[in-house]
């Protein structure tokens, strides 16, 4: 990988001071930072190409449309997707999941079963609860194990003829666990069960080929992979997307409107009603370029090195308890320090300029599983350094002393 200190120069925010100290940004699983390359693409859009897309035939509109559609191609290529119209731009992972969950209403009946895991983000639980409430279907939960992994044996036993869908995250945002999605997909497909993978955390950390893993739906958010806020994508196999009703009514998603009869447009437009987040989509494309330029192999290698270093140092710090497994995970570490409340730790770390997330991380069931109010979560990115980890360890020791 390019020298990490060189890479850090691409991120203006990383040279910021917080409470008098250098910012140590360890909250990457919540949102990643944005490189100048992406910021500049957004600026360039507003300064040179800003225009509503698709319907206009003037040059600006053509420019904007081209850039927007070329982001779709970038995402198609990056994720190994067969057809560009299988990439639906959304406002984020949550939106993507909701397109599917609300669309399935007419396809799911009261004898059907849907399966989620115990370690899902609320965004991958609540929509299915709502779907079950509306349809009478049953929501079943794959238990997790103490090491923070999905109980795959239990999952195998849960599969039966009634199971229509399985919803699992690629990577747990709370624990960092990389789930065996290929295995889950294969088992499910053998059972004629479709699978949606929540890729909010996975997409940012390694390159994944969606055609190869043969997943049915996959969702992610740009803001977790160096892109802007308010944009993400839903991938779906075209035959499945065709069957889903449109999520929203509006402009762009129709081919003809009369008061007697309205016809919907083809994919992907059917799901992109209204003026989309054009600058966001263009910024998303730029982020994909940026990260590929760094190289996902390099990203993974550096992050794994940081993970190992941080885990070792934390394990040696008195009072630290790490939750979940310590292998086969991305660079996310959830822990507590003695019996101090995570918010106390977080507040004190913030005084040292260290940004971590504390609380339940939108995964209340995981916290219930471990019977804790929450954790301190350190999530490391390819632009973080070992010396930042040293600062964290120092600060944790000081916090420990202060809290007594």
């Amino acid at each position, binding site marked *: 990988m390019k020298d990490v200190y060189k890479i850090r120069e691409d991120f203006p925010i990383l040279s910021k001071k917080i409470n008098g100290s250098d910012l140590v940004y360890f909250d990457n699983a919540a949102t990643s930072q944005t490189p100048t390359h992406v910021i500049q693409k957004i600026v360039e859009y507003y300064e040179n190409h800003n225009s509503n897309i*698709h319907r*206009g*035939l003037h040059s600006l*509109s*053509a420019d904007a*449309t081209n850039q927007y559609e070329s982001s779709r191609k970038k995402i198609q290529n990056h994720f190994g997707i067969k057809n560009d119209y299988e990439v639906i731009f959304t406002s984020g992972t949550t939106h993507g999941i909701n397109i599917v969950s609300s669309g399935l209403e007419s396809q799911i009946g009261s004898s059907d079963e849907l399966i989620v895991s115990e370690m899902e983000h609320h965004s991958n639980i609540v929509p299915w609860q709502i779907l079950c409430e509306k349809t009478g279907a049953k929501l079943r939960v794959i238990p997790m194990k103490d090491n923070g992994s999905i109980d795959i044996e239990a999952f195998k036993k849960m599969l039966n003829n009634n199971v229509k869908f399985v919803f699992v995250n690629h990577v747990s945002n709370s624990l960092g666990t990389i789930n065996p999605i290929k295995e889950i997909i294969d088992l499910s497909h053998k059972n004629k069960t479709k699978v949606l993978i929540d890729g909010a955390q996975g997409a940012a950390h390694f390159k994944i080929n969606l055609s190869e893993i043969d997943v049915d739906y996959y969702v992610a958010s740009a803001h977790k992979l160096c892109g802007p806020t308010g944009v993400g994508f839903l991938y779906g196999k075209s035959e499945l997307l065709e069957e889903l009703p449109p999520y929203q009514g509006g402009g762009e998603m129709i081919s003809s409107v009369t008061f007697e009869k309205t016809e919907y447009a083809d994919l992907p437009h059917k799901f992109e009603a209204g003026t989309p987040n054009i600058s966001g989509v263009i910024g998303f494309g730029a982020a994909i370029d940026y990260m590929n330029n760094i190289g996902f192999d390099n990203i993974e290698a550096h992050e794994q090195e940081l993970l190992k270093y941080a885990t070792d140092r934390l394990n040696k710090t008195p009072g630290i308890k790490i939750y979940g497994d310590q292998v086969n995970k991305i660079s996310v570490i959830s822990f507590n320090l003695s019996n101090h409340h995570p918010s106390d730790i977080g507040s004190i770390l913030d005084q040292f300029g260290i940004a971590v997330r504390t609380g339940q991380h939108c995964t209340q069931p995981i916290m219930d599983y471990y019977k804790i109010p929450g954790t301190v979560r350190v999530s490391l990115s390819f632009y973080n350094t070992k010396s930042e980890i040293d600062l964290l360890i120092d600060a944790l020791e000081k916090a420990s002393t202060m809290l007594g």
Partner: protein
Amino acid sequence: MNVGSIQSIQQEIVNEFDFFDDWSEKYQYLIDLGKNLPDFNQINRVEENLVKGCQSNVWLHAEIIDDKIIYTADSDAIISKGIISILISVFSGQKPEDIINAKMDFIDKIGLSNHLSQTRANGLLAMVKQIKIYAVAYNSKK
């Protein structure tokens, strides 16, 4: 009917456009071509022949005669008619496989791609796509 190869017709068109000094002459030429497009059989003005993705209506009809595809077309916008007229002069009377394999760089060379190809609204790309779809269809029937 005896027509040149796709390649040679494209070259002729490029030569033709080379004469023009600016966009307005090119547009004027397109408009004139549009006006002179042979009458379209109204029977073919049907939903199935509509080219998707143009702001104006463009109808494109294809039939196969002696192994060659004959395209006819119409539009309610005159510039679209001019564009489709050029495409017809290139592709009508050609063999399906030649159409499928044809390079389309003449569009860049006539210096109109900026103006015409970028947006889905005026449908140049959509027309080319439709022309090729017909060729693929007839080719697979053989």
